[in-house]
């Protein structure tokens, strides 16, 4: 084993602030670094981000590596993977943590192949093996029907971590740390891909990924018009409507509303599952929800094994009464 040491966390930035996943990774990284008796470093990549270094320190980083460059304003795989590789070669960490996000899903495998090591994706739990001191990484396999725990034989051990799977660290503004500025050193001529256009779309209503309440329907809803009642509930609870794969395939709802391993991963406070059986592929998409509620007429449906509260009822009879009651009490 090489002499790599320490934990390096890639801190994503959104809207000029550390993204929630960054504080979650700093939380996990602090715990692992403490257990190993090693240092926690953070890497910040972006444009005009100098103001965020103290925040990364307050969340637990001992050292913060900053690559601040106008060309890094937005994420793109080529420049970001180049600067990440540069930092990793400089720091030589034993563990690298990234988010299971659009950038982490690119960077973790890219670094693994470039550095001749392995990346473990979509980690839900991270522990240090007491005997070997290697990182035990738990992730869903077979569409969430099973979980695998694995260790990486080589360094650095790279893990992409699911959003909301880790507790954020407690912010302490009195903490001290070291800030190291690193030149991006990008040669624009060496970049092969070019972003021609970037459009930010403001979705009407609340985005599925951000929704505090998700109301999801399955095959049992039977039609596009059936989903209107789910829309009404979502409207009342300031939530968003999701679906399993069959309603998307049948075009009752848009493809972008699919929740599951092959669709979107959500972590709301409340998930209301209506007329859906609870296939693992779907359940994996909202695994870390605080309260799961099931409405299904089949008492044997798998969703009742996952749910916290449930009613065995035909949704066509239940939803109008549910909506009427909600209007009274909220």
């Amino acid at each position, binding site marked *: 084993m090489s002499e790599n040491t320490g934990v390096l966390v890639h801190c994503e930035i959104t809207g000029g602030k550390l993204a929630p996943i960054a504080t979650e990774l700093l939380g996990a990284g602090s715990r692992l670094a403490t257990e190993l008796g090693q240092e926690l470093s953070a890497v910040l990549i972006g444009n005009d981000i100098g103001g965020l270094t103290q925040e990364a320190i307050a969340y637990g980083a001992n050292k913060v590596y900053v690559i601040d460059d106008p060309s890094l304003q937005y994420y793109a795989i080529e420049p970001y993977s180049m600067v990440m590789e540069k930092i990793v070669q400089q720091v030589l960490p034993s563990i690298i943590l990234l988010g299971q996000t659009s950038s982490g899903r690119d960077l973790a495998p890219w670094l693994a192949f470039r550095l001749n090591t392995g990346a473990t994706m979509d980690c839900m739990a991270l522990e240090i093996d007491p005997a070997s001191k290697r990182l035990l990484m738990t992730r869903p396999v*077979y569409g969430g029907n099973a979980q695998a725990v694995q260790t990486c034989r080589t360094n650095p051990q790279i893990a992409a971590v699911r959003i909301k799977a880790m507790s954020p660290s407690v912010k302490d503004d009195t903490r001290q740390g070291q800030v190291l500025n690193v030149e991006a050193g990008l040669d624009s001529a060496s970049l092969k891909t070019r972003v*021609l256009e970037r459009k930010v779309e403001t979705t009407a209503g609340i985005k599925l990924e951000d929704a505090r309440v998700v109301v999801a329907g399955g095959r049992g809803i039977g039609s596009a018009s059936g989903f209107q009642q789910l829309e009404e509930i979502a409207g009342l609870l300031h939530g968003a409507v999701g679906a399993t794969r069959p309603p998307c395939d049948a075009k009752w709802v848009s493809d972008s509303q699919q929740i599951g391993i092959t669709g979107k991963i959500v972590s709301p406070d409340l998930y209301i599952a209506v007329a859906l059986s609870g296939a693992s592929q779907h359940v994996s998409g909202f695994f870390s929800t605080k309260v799961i509620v099931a409405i299904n007429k089949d008492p044997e449906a798998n969703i009742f094994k996952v749910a916290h*509260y*449930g009613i065995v009822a035909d949704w066509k009879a239940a939803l109008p009464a549910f909506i009427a009651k909600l209007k009274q009490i909220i």
Partner: protein
Amino acid sequence: MKNIIVCMKQVLDPEIPLSLFHIDTEAKQAIPPKAMPPVLSPFDENALEAALKIKDVQEATVTVISLGKKLNRVVVSSALAAGADQLVLLQDESFGDFNTYLTANAIAAAIKKLGQYDLILCGLQASDTNTGQVGIGIASILGIPCITAASKVELVDDKIKIEKALADGHEVIEAPSPVVVTATYEVGALREPGVEDFMSASKKPITIWNAGELGIETGNTNRFDLVKMYQPAHEGKCEILEGASSEEKAEKLALKLKEIKVI
């Protein structure tokens, strides 16, 4: 004539009912049920559809590569029926579902052996291993760029134009060929072949290569030790609210959500 390569994995049906799903905890893998044949991984079907959409509008040859210990010929041949021109099967005893490094190396070696490629398409991730690394690995080994999570792919002259969905919008990226692109469900579902498509598929060429023919190392290539594999135990603590009718149960449910303060 453009050459498009699509990488497709044969997987255990991700829609398998939980009652049919069992883990061999010794071997640390799923036991394939006899009652359910494997399927092509859903995102890989989107990748093939992206290739066929290009072939709809311009001259192109679509080659599907599939890798496994032992591939179900009927399942992989469905890619030919859907419209692919030829199939390259990489079969070897050393190939497994959980060795990303070996898989990417074997496919990259096969692509080099084929020689001609303008675009390589993969699914965003396989539905069994759920990792999404092979496409990026192939790009890294071949020394070409990779654009992930594409919702639309077009070949324009010698450039490739890719639309990619972002969390808060989308972007359009231009890459020189060759490039690896991974596809999401937003590309669209794979077209359904007709009866005559199955007839003509049986005449299309199938090439089979093993690790030796690919000239790759297979010994001790895995980067990981699989410590264990298990089925997560659900708490099974669902509180079922009772009532005389569906309506009454629904009202109780609304009140319960208010009581526990989630609404």
